[in-house]
């Protein structure tokens, strides 16, 4: 039973960052109709920025985290502006191929700059874990989880309480009508992509110090984000949040009770099962195939 509780706790903590990744991707898909294959690279980018500032330039750890998110937003806006803006209205396959190209180019740039050797980031948290009765968790993970939850809530508020969020939701519902009502669709697209990218960079920045940083770390992150988004239904914010936690639980349980070698397979099996039995995702409210 203790072991089970520990798995639940680990799954929740993991789920927080997964949810961040999933929300970023689902917003981009929902509003822009772009399957963002470079999502994982923004995650890697965030982790390397923390490494650059905290380890190479010996800046403050928390300042580095903030910088990683800000630069993630900037990079996202740049990618949208250069690659996606000229292709607005193009088919989903076209933008998907462009994003695959961007993914390959970005990943290998990281490889070129940082070499393939994994780097670790030291963090200022105590090494002894926090013990809560039968279970324990390291302080850095508690911090990661807290920041992830803050960011999720912040994004939620941004979408539901601000003018920008209202314009985003309008674009999501009906692009043409939103444009007719004076919403600047181009600006919304840039903002959406920048926001989604910033969240991915934040996830990378948060997990970099927990694990190690290496150039291909984004691949699995991207594939897992896809899994999360599929679970929740493409374009569904709440779905992606819950999907992140579900994937966290399933992976923990799978690794704990089936085999740790198949930990990463759980997400994909989940995708296949969900799509076979409920192709529009677990929480879909309307038809989204296409």
């Amino acid at each position, binding site marked *: 039973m203790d072991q089970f509780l520990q798995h639940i706790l680990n799954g929740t903590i993991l789920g927080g960052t997964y949810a961040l990744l999933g929300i970023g991707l689902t917003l981009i898909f929902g509003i822009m109709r772009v399957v963002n294959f470079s999502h994982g690279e923004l995650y890697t980018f965030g982790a390397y920025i923390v490494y650059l500032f905290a380890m190479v330039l010996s800046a403050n750890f928390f300042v580095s985290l903030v910088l990683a998110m800000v630069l993630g937003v900037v990079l996202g806006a740049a990618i949208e502006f250069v690659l996606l803006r000229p292709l607005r209205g193009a088919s989903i396959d076209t933008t998907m191929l462009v994003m695959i190209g961007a993914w390959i180019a970005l990943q290998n740039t990281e490889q070129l700059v940082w070499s393939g050797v994994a780097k670790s980031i030291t963090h200022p948290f105590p090494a002894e874990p926090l013990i809560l009765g039968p279970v324990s968790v390291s302080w850095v993970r508690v911090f990661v989880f807290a920041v992830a939850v803050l960011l999720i809530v912040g994004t939620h508020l941004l979408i539901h309480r601000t003018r920008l969020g209202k314009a985003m939701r309008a674009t999501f519902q009906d692009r043409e009508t939103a444009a007719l009502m004076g919403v600047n669709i181009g600006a919304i697209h840039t903002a959406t992509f920048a926001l989604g990218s910033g969240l991915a960079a934040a996830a990378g920045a948060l997990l970099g110090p927990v694990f190690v940083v290496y150039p291909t770390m984004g691949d699995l992150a991207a594939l897992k984000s896809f*899994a999360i988004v*599929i679970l929740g239904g*493409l374009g569904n914010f709440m779905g992606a949040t819950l999907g992140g936690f579900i994937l966290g639980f399933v992976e923990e349980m799978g690794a704990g009770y089936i085999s740790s070698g198949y930990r990463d397979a759980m997400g994909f099996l989940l995708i296949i099962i969900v799509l076979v039995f409920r192709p529009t995702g677990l929480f879909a409210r309307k038809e989204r195939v296409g």
Partner: protein
Amino acid sequence: MNRWLTWAWVAFLLTLPLWMEDQYFLHILITSGIFTIAAMSLNLLLGYTGQLSLGHVAFFGIGAYTSALVSLGFDLELTDTYTFVFAPRPVWVAFVAGIVVAGMSGWLIGKISFKVRGAYFVIVTISFAEVVRLVALNWVDLTEGPMALNNIPPFTLAVPGVWELAFFHKLPNYYLVLAVAIVSYVTVRRLVHSRIGRAMIALRENEPLAASAGVDVTRYLVLAAIVSAAMAGAAGGLYTHYIRIVDPDVFLFIYTVTMVIMVITGGKGTLAGPIVGGLIFGILPEVLREFASPEVQWIIYGVFMIMIVFFLPNGIVPALSAWWNDRFGATPSAGGPGTGLPDLEAATRTAGEAT
């Protein structure tokens, strides 16, 4: 003109090893040939049915592993007392087994994945490839996992008791790959020019309309997936008995991406496209290797892919044939590839016959 070009091309490839002595270049041609076959198989799905499968490497790898395992033999401990022993079989049998198993997995994956379309389809296919890769990595009893399957026997040609040739050298492998490539090309060509092919193109152009005209959508998609997977499996078998070692890295997503780049660059939905793309991206890395590290090469690939989508969205072959027709005013070839609406006339004709 097209016919002459095809024959000249085949003659060129047949005689190539006679005056090209460089073994390394022959090696590059063999590997490019294998990837061209895989790209042709992907083109059947991506180009003719319009479904972007990003898990195609799964079939390549399944073909490679099946062929390797059947030729090496294996034993599986099913229960504590019973062990299933599979004796090694001849390489040709293994090769065919690889094709069959890949085709069967194409059927299974097609059956499941074609329930969804668009972005969902893409993600399901990626998931399949990843699951298969993780199985190959973790089922160590069968696949040796990351230790790889070694000493895979090469193809052999023999007249029993009289003469035998094991394909340790490049030359016989070159002709074998060429032969399989030609068979694959003819298969795709005959398929897409048949009623089945027209049905596939119809549902690429407009699925609801095709369905309402009586095209059994799922059936044709699954059929395309089976043929495509079997062909990719053949490419995997060729690869495994040529390189003679296979590890879970054959399932890496990057190989799927390579195939996609080949098809898109050459021209999806054209017969010659994957060949052009396959040769370009088979030979380009070797040319670039002289003055660029692998990372820089991949960066160039990525940028190249973006450029192609921006400036030549239909690929090289349609662009060239459009240029040729402009220049020399030839009549557009019937059902000209890349013209957007291939052979509508013929499609209507068949539809008329069918009713």
